[in-house]
């Protein structure tokens, strides 16, 4: 029995290959069913994202059905087997566990610390669970991996500092305004960058968007997308009054908003703080607006330099994340080894008990008529002998601290007593 993994990711396979072996949820279900019908693996989970396709499983014996699974993937996606040469990696036991934990912690991602992978791991597991393809080992493995991912996220910086421009803007806004729900946002110029920023703001609960653009049609288009309102460009001054956050990306060659402009505005909005995000080139907002009390202004360069700084910080924390992963791998392996010891003991006891009862019955028959007391005594005697003999190996096996040693002992026991025939 061994945990087994075969797959490919953004490091081993180029995107042209990866996109051919993506499993959609529907395909995953079919593939999982086919895999279990083929009987190579005892449990299986398919994790497929745009950066990786991996099949996790639990093998019956010590041998990994590597070739079989590879061929299965190729056949399933109608790819000639040669096309995937060198793309697959294959790992077992501890390495496979570590791999999954690193994946869930986003240490194996293209952008280290990116948040989506954890949800993808969870979904892959839930899908397999619903398909009844998992059992005690993979259930535990995947539940643990989600926990590890969460722990790494919570205890290290690798996921905490935003590294994309729009998320830096959102974090800064959150540090100024606290909760972003209910904040009003005005978008000047409906370009692609503004759309991205609006999208991340919407993810953080901002629901009140207004869009203004020189071409009103485009403003309406973007506004409709985020359930906002479109405002004609001529009414810019009015539009500036309510919002707390202004995202500007017009193609205007001059400043759209100037200091004197804003000074007038601030008194009518009672000097509540305002946050300008100027992502236009050339800039839309006069840098001197920062001199106005309670006005914060970030331009494209500011966002970029913070994002880069954060990326460096994330990378600094990778060793800490790896340490957490190591710790959890050790704990998991400990549990897994325990799993092999307990069934061994159970099947050993079962087998010996079986021998005892058959022998007892046979000999009692030979002994002829006996009183109740004598029968009980003989039964107790045999039981006591069996228990005494089994006591020491049971205790010793369970107490062996070293995992490898315990596994070897269990293996020896299973071989010597021929325990592997039995179901466990």
């Amino acid at each position: 029995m061994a945990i087994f993994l075969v797959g490919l990711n953004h490091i081993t396979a180029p995107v042209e290959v990866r996109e051919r072996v993506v499993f959609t949820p529907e395909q995953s279900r079919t593939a999982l069913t086919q895999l279990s019908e083929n009987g190579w693996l005892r449990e299986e989970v398919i994790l497929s994202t745009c950066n990786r396709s991996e099949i996790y499983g639990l093998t019956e014996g010590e041998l990994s059905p590597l070739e079989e699974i590879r061929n299965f993937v190729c056949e399933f996606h109608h790819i000639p087997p040669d096309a995937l040469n060198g793309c697959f990696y294959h790992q077992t036991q501890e390495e496979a566990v570590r791999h999954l934990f690193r994946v869930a912690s986003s240490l194996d991602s293209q952008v280290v610390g990116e948040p989506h992978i954890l949800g993808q791991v969870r979904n892959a597991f839930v899908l397999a669970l619903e398909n009844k393809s998992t059992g005690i080992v993979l259930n535990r493995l995947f539940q643990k991996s989600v926990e590890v991912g969460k722990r790494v996220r919570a205890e290290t910086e690798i996921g905490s500092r935003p590294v994309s421009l729009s998320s830096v803007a959102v974090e800064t806004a959150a540090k100024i305004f606290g909760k972003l729900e209910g904040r009003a946002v005005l978008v000047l110029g409906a370009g692609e960058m503004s759309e991205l920023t609006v999208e991340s703001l919407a993810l953080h609960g901002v629901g009140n968007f207004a869009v203004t653009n020189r071409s009103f049609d485009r403003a309406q288009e973007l506004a409709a997308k985020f359930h906002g309102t479109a405002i004609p460009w001529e009414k810019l001054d009015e539009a500036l009054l309510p919002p707390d956050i202004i995202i500007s990306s017009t193609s205007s060659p001059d400043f759209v908003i100037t200091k004197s402009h804003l000074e007038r505005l601030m008194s009518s909005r009672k000097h509540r703080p305002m946050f300008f995000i100027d992502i236009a080139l050339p800039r839309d907002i006069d840098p001197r607006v920062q001199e106005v009390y309670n006005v914060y202004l970030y331009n494209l360069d500011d966002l970029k330099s913070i994002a880069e700084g954060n990326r460096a910080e994330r990378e600094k924390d990778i060793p800490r994340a790896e340490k957490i992963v190591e710790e959890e791998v050790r704990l998991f392996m400990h549990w897994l080894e325990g799993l092999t010891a307990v069934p061994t003991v159970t099947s050993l006891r079962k087998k010996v008990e079986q021998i005892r009862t058959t022998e007892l019955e046979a000999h009692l028959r030979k002994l002829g008529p006996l009183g109740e007391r004598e029968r009980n005594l003989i039964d107790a005697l045999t039981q006591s002998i069996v228990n005494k003999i089994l006591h020491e190996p049971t205790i010793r096996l369970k107490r062996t601290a070293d995992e490898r040693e315990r596994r070897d002992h269990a293996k020896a026991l299973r071989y010597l007593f021929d325990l592997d025939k039995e179901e466990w």
Partner: protein
Amino acid sequence: MYIILSWIAVLSYLVTETLYWLNLVSRKLAYAKLASRFLVISLIIHFTAMLARSRQLHLVPYKDLYGSLSLFAWMVALIYLALEFRHRQKSVGAFLLPIPIVLLLLGTLLNRPGTHTPSAELRGMLFAYHVTSNIFAYSAFTVSFILSMLYLLQHHQIRVRRPGLLFSRLPSLELLERMNRTSVAVGVPVLLCGILLGSLWARKLHVLWEWDPKLVWSIITLLVYAGYLFLEKKGTWKGKRSAIISVCGFLIIIFSYSVVNLFFSSFHKFY
């Protein structure tokens, strides 16, 4: 007895402080939850220490250094705990708790044993309420001072576009401002009460109204913080300027606690 209890309280506060820092550094929420529990325990131990002291003296122990510093420390910690509950924000504790720790430590170390036999004028409910409210108000302003400093730090980080190590851990400007407002809004009416109670008590002692320097400075403090509340509400001074007012107010308190107390005041001496 109360000295031993005070030391235990100091230790317990130190544990709390460590837990708050662990929460900041490791970002494990479990630490913050534990810290809050330890803070409650510390407050109880500390209270027992003060209770033991006042049993010994048969009055609320204000006249000595231990009494006033210890009560001050206790109230700062108590007000912080209340703020933490109200605003569900646990990261400020790491910055705030050093104040009660240092105050209690100073009080316990500088304490000169021996019973001060209290004069008759220092007895009575009125006097007790007067001193308690004043210390309470000053504690609230101390909390406001720390919050203002954090506000200025956070504001600075946003302005220079260099999110430092604690940037993501500290609360937002908006929340710091709100917490700050809560503590000042509690402090101002309580200080007003304290001053009025003091004058009532003086009247009972047949002192009509004496312009004691300490009283003058208390009124100045009151005006500064009332001004904070007024300007904050008006909006023009929201944010950084309010934080600066609060810092100034705190400097005035320090001044009146130290210089005025030691050199000018006639009957407002605590030790």
